[in-house]
């Protein structure tokens, strides 16, 4: 078995655990915590999708990851503006 493939699977497992941690943070009582959790979840899911694209050769996962990486921070910044009261 290829070492690169094994390390990709290890990173996949680590990102899955991190995603669960960020979902747990998202459910805390303040809105700021939800923003932190969602921001972490967006980049974790995007990296998982890129890993899936590399391992299984599913091309459109890259497009979804691009959308997540661009729109995740944009949504977070927009909601932060609302939270701040601008």
């Amino acid at each position, binding site marked *: 078995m290829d070492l690169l493939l094994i390390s990709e699977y290890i990173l996949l497992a*680590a990102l899955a655990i*991190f995603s669960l941690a960020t979902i747990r943070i998202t459910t805390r009582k303040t809105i700021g915590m939800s923003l932190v959790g969602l921001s972490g979840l967006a980049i974790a899911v995007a990296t998982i999708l890129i890993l899936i694209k590399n391992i299984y050769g599913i091309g459109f996962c890259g497009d979804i990851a691009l959308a997540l990486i661009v729109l995740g921070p944009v949504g977070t910044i927009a909601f932060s503006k609302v939270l701040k009261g601008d």
Partner: protein
Amino acid sequence: MAFIEVTDPISLVKSILLIICAVLVILGGIGILRYKDDLERVMYARIHILGIADMACILALLVLGEYLLAAAYFVMAPFNAHAIANAHYYGEEKR
């Protein structure tokens, strides 16, 4: 070990970097859950910990060959963290 193959030195370096990323992501996941909510200014600590996981994911994207995505998120991650901290300071903490 016999069943683990290393085809070339570049893939060995890539594997080591991906495992380093996995360790950093796990540490970020532990750190983000570690502190209690009633701690003072725990929000900023969590934003700081999130930055480590962000950079680990950017490194993983670079290793996996997605340079454009890594560069885009490298530019946007500090704006993101600043926006959350700023909104929390002026929106939730001052109320």
